[in-house]
């Protein structure tokens, strides 16, 4: 299982703040995971329609889409940050 977290407008579009996911076979990296989530359609497809504005953290560190994803990981998807 992996833990998925969504923040800001990704959270509102998907309609969930977090969920657990059994990593489907063949998915090894963030890009594969996002492609899988897009196939769920609805809010997922909408939230993930423009990946230029989607940032990813695995285990609370920023990573590129090529970063591996393995069971036990905490994967967060969120828009570019606007704090400060």
């Amino acid at each position, binding site marked *: 299982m992996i833990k998925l*977290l969504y*923040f*800001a*407008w990704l959270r509102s579009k998907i309609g969930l703040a977090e969920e657990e996911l059994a990593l489907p076979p063949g998915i090894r990296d963030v890009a594969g995971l996002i492609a899988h989530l897009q196939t769920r359609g609805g809010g997922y497809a909408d939230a993930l329609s423009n990946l230029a504005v989607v940032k990813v*953290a695995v285990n*609370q*560190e*920023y990573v590129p889409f090529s970063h591996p994803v393995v069971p036990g990981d905490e994967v*967060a998807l*969120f*828009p*570019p*940050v*606007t*704090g*400060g």
Partner: protein
Amino acid sequence: MAVRVQQADFDIGAELTALTQGNPGIGGVCCFTGLVRDLHPQAGEQAGTVRALTLEHYPGMTERQLAAIEAEARARWPLEACLIIHRYGRMEPGEKIVLVACASAHREAAFDACRFLMDWLKSKAPFWKLEETGRGTRWVDSRHSDEEAARRWDQPAG
């Protein structure tokens, strides 16, 4: 050497006093405070457009990122003390959002480290602003200029 993520407001004077107390080697403190603004002047908005702001964050990652940014500042400049406070939750115009304070023997390090911390914080700390206006709520877009500001620190100082 402190990072705090909190909902509550803070007292700048009390924080700066506590930061420098007991260290007479400190020659100066540079402090930046970010406030909730009620408009986006560059978008031609009228005063009062933004009625409130809600800061969402990623608990756990926020603290880790702020601690890493603070450690980076301490590695680059000779700081005697350093403090980052960032609030989350709902705030109204005029309220304080963030405080960065850097203390050093001389002003250059304090000024530079304070600016570095704010630039990095704006581009790396996982916070998102949701604004309330008379026409509903809207997520604030990230600004390209903030990423540019952070990028100028990519080369280590000195």
